[in-house]
Each structure stands twice: as structure tokens, then as C-alpha cells.
């Protein structure tokens, strides 16, 4: 797209708890440099951190990408599987299948997907068992 101000892609590995969160920290830094308002910055940061952690905790690995156009910040998380069998259940506050490791680090409260939806202006999740999950979020800049 010609009016793209910024585009970045971050591969995120499954179960890489050490690096988990680095992509989101970089995204936040980049958006801050672009002069994105504190309110949007904070909402993007929270959603990005949750979606990145989900890639680490629940997926077989994937890519988090950032795209900024003059009207919005877009975050896209696309993974290689395993997919979510019941999306309604997954979207429910408190529902979690997180491992003990994830829980011991402070995750697995089942608040991630609801948090993303609450913070993003646009939220779309598609998932297919055996194929993977794609989450698209938009944050309006105007």
C-alpha cells in the first residue's frame, strides 16, 4: 500500500518465554517515535502484548505484524496452528487452557482475548483447527 507509514513483521516462536514481549516492546517504541497519542499507544501495547503472549503460550508459532497508515494502526497475528475449536468459549473472560509454565509467569487468566477486543477499535478473529488462528486489530488514529 502506498500510504503505509510503517510496516514491520515479528516472528514469534512457540514456548519462547524468554523473548516473549520483545516484539510488543519494539512496536510500542516505534509507535511512540511516530508520535502516536498516549491513549492509542497504551491500547495497542496492551493488545499487542496479549496477542504476542498467546502466540508463545498457545500457538505452534507465528508472525505478529504491524502496519501503520495515516488513519489507523493495524496489528495482525497469524499462526501455524493448532487453531481454536470453540471461539465463543475462547472469547469468554476467565476461560483458559494455558499450561502451568504460562500460569507461573502470571498468564493464563483467560483475559487476553477479551482484553484485545476491549482495547482495539476493530477486532476480528478467525480460526480453523489444524490450520491456525488469525487475529486482526485496528486502532483508529483520528
Amino acid at each position, binding site marked *: 500500500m502506498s500510504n503505509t507509514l510503517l510496516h514491520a513483521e515479528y516472528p514469534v516462536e512457540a514456548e519462547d518465554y*524468554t523473548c*516473549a*514481549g520483545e516484539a*510488543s*516492546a519494539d512496536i*510500542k517504541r516505534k509507535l511512540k517515535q511516530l508520535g502516536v497519542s*498516549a491513549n492509542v499507544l*497504551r491500547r495497542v*501495547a*496492551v493488545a*499487542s*502484548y*496479549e496477542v504476542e503472549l498467546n502466540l508463545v503460550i498457545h500457538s505452534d508459532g507465528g508472525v505478529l505484524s504491524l502496519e501503520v497508515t495515516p488513519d489507523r494502526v493495524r496489528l495482525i497475528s497469524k499462526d501455524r496452528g493448532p487453531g481454536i475449536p470453540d471461539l465463543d468459549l475462547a472469547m469468554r473472560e476467565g476461560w483458559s487452557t494455558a499450561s502451568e509454565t504460562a500460569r507461573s*509467569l*502470571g*498468564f*493464563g*487468566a*483467560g*483475559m*487476553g482475548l*477479551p*482484553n484485545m477486543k*476491549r482495547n482495539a477499535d476493530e477486532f476480528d478473529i478467525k480460526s480453523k483447527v489444524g490450520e491456525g488462528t488469525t487475529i486482526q486489530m485496528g486502532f483508529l488514529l483520528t
Partner: protein
Amino acid sequence: MNIQDMVNVLHAKVLCGQERLETKVYTACCSDLMSDVLAFVNEKTVLITGLTNAHVLRTADMLDLKCLVFARGKIPGDDLLEQADEQGLVVITTPATAFTACGLLYEAGLRGVPIEWPESEARL
């Protein structure tokens, strides 16, 4: 209340950010669940937690938090403290348990971050 007042109330030890103790705190949140913290907390809030891993710092970074209180005398590793200092955080540790730390701060006038959910405590 500022961070110095909290240090006094909690008999806390300052682990980093000594030069930022004048920073004001407005509300508090006590949790070990980073998703709850991400959902409800804002930059004017102090986080009281028993977790001392890198994700607490990353969560604090995402939210631009100014102060972390580690309960039950917990002290994170030097690498974490260095990173916390870079983030501009004040980190303090109190011998009190999380429960007692919250009680002491509440008694001193600090209140919880306002949280909205269907059965929220605003109705109490």
C-alpha cells in the same frame, strides 16, 4: 501520596529509582495475574505483586507504570533491576505480605484503581 510515603508506610527498601521517590501515586492494584493488570491498570497506579519475573517488567513497560512493590521481601535479580531502572521505574520491596501491604496502604489513604465490570465493587 508519593512513593517516599509508601516506603515509610511499608518499611520498604528501595531497590532502584532512588531519585524518583517524589513521584506521586494515585491508585493501587495488587495482582499476580498480568492479564488482570493489563486490563485494568493505568500509569498512575502502583502495582503490588509477588511475581518477580521479566514479564512483570514488560507488563509495567506496556502500561508506563512508575512503581512496583514486591511483597514478602522478594528481591528480583540484578539484571531485572537494571532493566527496571532503564524503564524509569521505582522498585521497592517490603517485608509485609501482599495482604498486609495493601492494608497498610489503604489505611494510609491509598485506594484501588477504579475497575468496571458487571458486578464491580463500585456497587458496594
